[in-house]
């Protein structure tokens, strides 16, 4: 299996190099104007990388421990689902998966190319193939096909914290999102190279960017959910470099999508759109480098992996190459001139993409600072900068849907804003009466309410206009309008999703309360109406295959809310002990299960942090996290909106809506 996997990777590398040469130089074109040999090459690379993935997957499923990777990330006891997720559980596997999605994307791009974008294909696919070679080289350095000898009887198994549904989908969604954005970048480069700076590259890139946006967004939300439910520290976002590596590309892809709409509709800010395509792609690769270089582990070990030179060479080539190309071709990028006002569709679109870039720059600085200095910025740094920026972006989303595209009628706008602002004020009054009076919660809630209402006002105005115009009833008008402009209404659903997500984030940041206490058996903790009674713990030990002993400690607790019994909860810990004779040589946490009682208003979150075996005391953290559930609901809406947007054919934008 090792041989087969390695052979597929080496062969894919050689074919990819050949394909780049053939795409650039071969003059024998097929009927689509694409060099015939290179066409075979693109499909052959996709096939070979698919073969490598199949080899690894079969090895995982058949417990072929002659591969180091299989022995490291699975065991005979690993459930089937987690055998499959073993594919991306480790660094070598995740690189293979990433490269695989890029190679498939290249094949799909070529397969779906038509007479409009065929001129872009040879150069775009050369860049896709070049990116695939990066991953093939990385896979070769840190190979999932490394042979293990002697072959062990059993593998180490997948870490228990990774055996969670969130971990099944979170990594592949993020990896696929990163991989898909290779295509918009490749198209941008090809457009510059061929001096074809018209709409075609953007309209071709749009669906890829929407898909990347959707996958990255869902991947991030699932990562938050996993951190919250499984890692068990009571939060969902820590501005960790690994998290930031997922967030930054998502922000720039969002900026690219908005800028791209302006590029096509108004023919404006073209250079800006190119810059966003370049930087968003660059950050996906930079993120891969960052997360595989252990920034947080130590300043001093940063980048001390054999992969570093490869990453640096690739990052430098893509950055220098794309910037040079952009500068060299600047005279071919003719942005339309317009006298669009600041408060207009155009204005808000520019402002949104600008704010997203500013936010990304600050996150980038904070994330890379530990690489160059020995300072780790506090979470406060990220929150102070980004939360106001994000709120401003959300507020603009509300203004954006209500204003006209070029020069709005400000009187009209004033009228349209009455209802959203009115509802916003009512919400504020209700909140203050209800005792929610912290300004950093009230201001965001006002904005969120107003934006939500603004979005519905615009949507119902569209439907009402159609009902009058086409004499249709509400359901028919709504349905037909929705189907005809899925791109727009998918976007609106995504806006609503972001508002709902923000609702959860604001609620749980502004009103999170927690108590940490050492409890004797029979002690209670009271927090926000909840009372927790600690009844001690049960423990049991089980010997493991590797000679260690796992001690499972399950706490027994009863909860009441405002005097009414809610039930019992059992947060737990599993500790692993390694012995040498009678002495313990190692002790480490295997897993930590928190107990969460959720409803739409709040989560009651209990961590059994530690225990004392002699006194039966427990160290318990109790957290009341308001509105957290709305984050996950926002994630579901994001999925729906993303799928609706994605389902919209690209032609809608170029013909119908223009």
């Amino acid at each position: 299996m090792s041989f087969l996997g390695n052979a597929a990777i080496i062969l894919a590398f050689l074919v990819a190099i050949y394909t780049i040469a053939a795409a650039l130089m071969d003059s024998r074109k097929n009927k689509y104007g694409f060099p015939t040999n290179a066409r075979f090459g693109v499909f052959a690379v996709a096939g070979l990388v698919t073969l490598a993935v199949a080899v690894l997957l079969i090895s995982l499923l058949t417990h072929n421990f002659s591969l180091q990777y299989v022995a490291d990330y699975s065991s005979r006891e690993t459930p089937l689902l987690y055998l499959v997720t073993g594919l991306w559980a480790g660094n070598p596997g995740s690189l293979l998966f990433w490269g695989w999605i890029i190679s498939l994307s290249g094949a799909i791009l070529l397969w779906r190319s038509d007479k409009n974008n065929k001129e872009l294909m040879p150069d775009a696919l050369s860049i896709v193939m070049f990116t695939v070679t990066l991953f093939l080289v990385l896979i070769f350095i840190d190979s999932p096909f490394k042979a293990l000898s002697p072959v062990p009887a059993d593998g180490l198994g997948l870490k228990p914290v990774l055996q969670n549904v969130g971990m099944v989908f979170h990594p592949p969604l993020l990896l696929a999102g990163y991989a898909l954005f290779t295509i918009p970048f490749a198209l941008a480069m090809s457009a510059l190279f061929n001096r074809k700076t018209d709409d075609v590259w953007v309209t071709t890139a749009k669906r890829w960017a929407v898909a990347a946006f959707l996958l990255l967004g869902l991947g991030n939300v699932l990562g938050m959910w996993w951190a919250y439910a499984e890692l068990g520290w009571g939060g969902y976002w820590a501005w960790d470099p690994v998290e930031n590596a997922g967030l930054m590309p998502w922000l720039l892809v969002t900026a690219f999508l908005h800028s791209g709409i302006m590029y096509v509709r108004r023919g404006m800010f073209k250079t800006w759109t190119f810059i966003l395509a370049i930087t968003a792609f660059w950050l996906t690769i930079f993120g891969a480098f960052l997360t595989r270089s252990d920034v947080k582990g130590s300043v001093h070990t940063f980048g001390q992996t054999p992969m570093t030179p490869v990453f640096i060479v690739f990052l430098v080539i893509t950055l220098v190459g794309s910037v040079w190309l952009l500068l060299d071709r600047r005279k071919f990028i003719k942005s339309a001139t317009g006298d669009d006002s600041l408060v207009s569709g155009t204005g808000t679109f520019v402002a949104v993409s600008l704010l997203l870039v500013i936010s990304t720059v600050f996150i980038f600085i904070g994330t890379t600072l530990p690489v160059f200095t020995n300072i780790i910025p506090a979470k406060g740094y990220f929150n102070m900068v980004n939360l106001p920026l994000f709120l401003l972006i959300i507020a603009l989303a509300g203004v954006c849907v209500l204003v006209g595209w070029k020069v709005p009628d400000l009187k009209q706008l004033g009228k349209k804003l009455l209802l959203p602002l009115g509802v916003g004020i009512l919400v504020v009054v209700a909140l203050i009466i209800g005792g929610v009076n912290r300004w950093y919660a009230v201001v965001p809630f006002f904005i969120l309410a107003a934006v939500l209402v603004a979005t519905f006002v615009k949507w119902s105005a569209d439907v009402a206009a159609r009902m009058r115009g086409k004499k249709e009833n509400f359901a028919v008008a709504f349905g037909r309008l929705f189907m005809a402009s899925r791109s727009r209404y998918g976007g609106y659903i995504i806006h609503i999703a972001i508002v709902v997500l923000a609702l959860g984030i604001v609620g749980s940041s502004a009103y999170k309360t927690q108590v940490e206490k050492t409890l004797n058996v029979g002690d209670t903790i009271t927090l926000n109406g909840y009372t927790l009674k600690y009844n001690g713990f049960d423990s049991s030990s089980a010997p493991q295959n590797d000679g260690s002993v796992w001690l499972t400690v399950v706490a027994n607790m009863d909860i009441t809310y405002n005097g009414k019994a809610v039930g019992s909860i059992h947060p737990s810990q599993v500790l692993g002990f390694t012995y040498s004779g009678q002495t313990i040589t190692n002790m480490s946490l295997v897993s930590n299960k928190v107990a969460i009682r959720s409803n739409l208003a709040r989560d009651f979150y209990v961590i059994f942090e530690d225990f004392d075996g002699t006194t039966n005391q427990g160290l318990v953290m109790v957290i009341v996290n308001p509105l957290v559930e709305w984050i996950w609901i926002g994630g579901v809406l994001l999925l729906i909106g993303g799928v609706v947007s994605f389902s919209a054919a690209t032609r809608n934008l170029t013909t119908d809506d223009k």
Partner: protein
Amino acid sequence: MFKHKKFIIGGIIVVLAALVLGYVGFMGVGTYYYNVSEFISKESTLSGKTVRVSGIVDSAVPPVKDGFTYRFTLLDISSPDVKIEVVYNGPTPPDTFKVGQQAVVEGKFDPAAGVFDGSGIIVKCASKQPAAT
């Protein structure tokens, strides 16, 4: 072309505001980060300040759990002779905390006891390590 001026002015205002906020946030509780030998050489100036120290958990002296207190020794990554004693009070260290592996401990130096008083052990992304051995 486009009424650029307004955008440039607006952009500058936003960037300045973000810079101010970033500065305020940054001055809040940014943490300094040292390896064991750097920390020891700066010990006198650092007592009472919260810092993060990164090192290898000594396998010769396995961590001891006594009630909610954990005691272990952190070795410098490049020169393992340089070490500090750490006393850390629960919660249980995260699953990435293992003897012979790298750990990052946040806390303060306690000059009276001559030990590093840990208040937290930093969790690394679990996906970056193979399963327990």
